[in-house]
C-alpha cells in the first residue's frame, strides 16, 4: 500500500514510591492516575480530542493508543504525545495524593517488563489489503520480526545460565508462539485478532505484538519504517527466497541473548544463516524493491541508511556508529560506562535501576531524556510537533472526523459515545454513523450529527 494506516498502542509500567512509607497497590495508583480522565469522560476508557484512545488495560496498565496515522513522523509525534498526556496525569495525581496525605512520586516507565518478569506490550498496527494471503504474509514477515530486535530492541539485562547479560530485547523472552489470537496467556509474534476497524472486505489489521517500546524517536522511525517497507515488498507479490524459520521462538530468544548478531538461525529449507545474515538478506531485498519501485515517502532514504548502519555496527561490534540513535546501543553505552566507572557488575541493584530508569518518561529524571538533553541521544521531531499532536488529530485520516465530533459534543455539552469506527449522538432523535474508511478526513453524516447537536433538543 502506498498509503497505509498505522497505529501504536503503548502500555506503561506504573509505580508509586512513597516518601512516607505508605505504599499504594498498582490498582490504587492507576485509579488515582485516571481520576481526571474519569471526571472528564465518565469512564477510564476514553477517546481524546486528538483522536487517540486513553484507557486502563489488563493488569491496571495505563495505555495510550495513537489515533490513525498515515505518515511516519506523524505517528512518532502522536506516540510521544501519549507520554505528554501521561505526564500531565502524573502531575495531577501526585498533587491529589499529597492533598490526601500521601507524599510520594509516581513513575511511569515506557518499557516492557517489571522486576518480577511480568511483561506488557507495545503493539503495532498496520492496515493491510485483505487480498494478501495471511499465511504467506506471516511466513515472510516472521523471519524479519524475529531478527528485527537487532535494529530496534530496547536493550535489557537478563540472567542467562547464572550470568547477567546485556541482551537486545525486553520482549523476546516473553514470546511463546509465531501466530495466534492470544495476547496475555500465550503471546504470539503476530496476533491474528482481526478487527480491521475499517471495511473488512478490503482491509485487514496486522497486529504485531513482539516489539519493544521505543524511547528513542530515531529507533521508532527505524522500527516502523523498516516494517512498512517489508510489508510493501510482501504485498507486491514479488517472490523471494524462502526464509521461514524452523523454530521462531527458540530463535528469537537465542538472537536476543547473543549480543554479536552471530546466532545461527535454522531455516525450514535447511539453511543456517546467522541473524545478521538474515537481516542483510532482507535489507538487500528491500533496497532492490525500492530501487525498482521508487521511494513511497520522504523518510525512506533515512530508514534505509539507519538500517544499514545498524547492521554494520553489529557486524563490526563498533556500537559508536549508532549509540545516539538506537535504544539498545544508547542504553548499552550508559550501562557499561556507569558500571566501569563505579566498578559495578551487571547484576548490581544500581545497574538494574539504570536499566529501569532509562524508560522513566519524566523529562527531568528519566535517563533517556537526560542523555537526550546532553546531546547523547538523537531526536527526529521538532518538540512543537509533539505539542501539536497532544491537541490536534492527524489531519490526513479518519481521526480528523472523530476529533471534530468529540469537540462538538463537548462544546455543546451533549451526550455522545465513540469508538474507532462509530460516532454516536445520544440525545434527542440522536443517531449513529459508521465511519468505515480510515483514510476519509470528512464525513457528511457526522457533520449532520454535529448540526443536530447544535440545535435545541
Amino acid at each position, binding site marked *: 500500500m502506498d498509503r497505509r494506516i498505522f497505529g501504536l498502542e503503548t*502500555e506503561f*509500567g506504573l*509505580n508509586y*514510591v512513597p516518601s512516607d512509607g505508605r505504599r499504594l497497590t*498498582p490498582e490504587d495508583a492507576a485509579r488515582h492516575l485516571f481520576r*481526571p*480522565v474519569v*471526571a*472528564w469522560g465518565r469512564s477510564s476508557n476514553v477517546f*481524546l480530542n486528538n483522536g487517540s484512545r486513553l484507557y486502563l*488495560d*489488563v*493488569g*491496571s*496498565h495505563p*495505555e495510550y493508543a495513537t489515533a490513525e496515522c498515515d505518515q511516519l513522523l506523524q505517528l512518532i509525534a502522536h506516540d510521544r504525545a501519549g*507520554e*505528554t*498526556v501521561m505526564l*500531565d496525569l502524573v*502531575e*495531577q495525581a501526585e498533587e491529589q495524593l499529597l492533598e490526601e496525605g500521601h507524599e510520594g512520586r509516581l513513575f511511569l*516507565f515506557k518499557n516492557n517488563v*517489571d*522486576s518480577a518478569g*511480568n511483561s*506488557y*506490550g507495545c503493539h503495532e498496527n498496520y492496515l493491510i489489503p485483505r487480498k494478501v494471503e495471511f499465511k504467506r504474509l506471516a511466513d515472510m514477515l516472521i523471519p524479519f520480526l524475529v531478527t528485527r530486535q537487532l535494529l530496534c530492541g530496547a536493550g535489557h539485562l537478563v540472567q542467562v545460565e547464572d550470568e547477567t547479560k546485556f541482551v537486545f530485547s525486553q520482549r523476546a523472552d516473553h514470546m511463546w508462539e509465531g501466530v495466534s489470537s492470544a*495476547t*496475555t496467556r500465550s*503471546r504470539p509474534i503476530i496476533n491474528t485478532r482481526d478487527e480491521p476497524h475499517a471495511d473488512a472486505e478490503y482491509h485487514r489489521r496486522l497486529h504485531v505484538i513482539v516489539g519493544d517500546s521505543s524511547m528513542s524517536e530515531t529507533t521508532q522511525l527505524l522500527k516502523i519504517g523498516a516494517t512498512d517497507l517489508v510489508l510493501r515488498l510482501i504485498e507486491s507479490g514479488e517472490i523471494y527466497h524462502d526464509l521461514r524459520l524452523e523454530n521462531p521462538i527458540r530463535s528469537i530468544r537465542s538472537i536476543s541473548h547473543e549480543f554479536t548478531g552471530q546466532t545461527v538461525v535454522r531455516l525450514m529449507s535447511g539453511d543456517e544463516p546467522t541473524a545478521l545474515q538474515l537481516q542483510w538478506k532482507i535489507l538487500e531485498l528491500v533496497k532492490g524493491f525500492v530501487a525498482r519501485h521508487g521511494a513511497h515517502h520522504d523518510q525512506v532514504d533515512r530508514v534505509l541508511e539507519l538500517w544499514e548502519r545498524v547492521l554494520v555496527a553489529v557486524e563490526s561490534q563498533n556500537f559508536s556508529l549508532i549509540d545516539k540513535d538506537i535504544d539498545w546501543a544508547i542504553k548499552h553505552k550508559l550501562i557499561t*560506562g*556507569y558500571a566501569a*566507572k*563505579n566498578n559495578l557488575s551487571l547484576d*548490581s*541493584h544500581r545497574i*538494574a*535501576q*539504570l536499566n*529501569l*530508569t532509562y524508560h522513566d518518561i519524566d*523529562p*527531568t*529524571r528519566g*535517563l533517556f531524556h*537526560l542523555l*537526550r*538533553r*546532553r*546531546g547523547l541521544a538523537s*531526536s527526529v521531531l521538532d*518538540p512543537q510537533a*509533539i*505539542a501539536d499532536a*497532544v491537541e490536534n488529530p492527524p489531519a490526513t485520516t479518519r481521526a480528523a472526523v472523530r476529533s471534530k465530533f468529540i*469537540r462538538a459534543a*463537548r*462544546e455543546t*455539552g451533549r451526550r455522545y459515545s465513540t469508538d474507532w469506527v462509530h460516532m454516536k449522538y445520544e440525545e434527542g432523535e440522536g443517531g449513529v454513523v459508521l465511519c468505515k474508511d480510515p483514510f476519509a478526513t470528512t464525513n457528511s453524516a457526522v457533520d449532520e450529527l454535529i448540526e443536530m447537536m447544535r440545535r435545541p433538543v
Partner: protein
Amino acid sequence: MTQENFSARRENQAQPVETEQVQVNTTGTSAGVDDLLDEIDSVLESNAEEFVRGFIQKGGQ
C-alpha cells in the same frame, strides 16, 4: 478542569516537557563523563534495591 480536556497544565503553561535540546559535548573528556555520572546519580532514587524490587505489575498484553 475544563470542558474541553482534563489537562491541568496545557492552558496556563507552555510545554515544559520538551526542553530545548542542548548540545553539550560531553564525550571524550573525563570531566564531561564525570559530570554526566554525577547528574545521573543526582536523579536516581537513593535506594536502588528497594526501587527496583518495588516495581511489580500484573502482566499486561
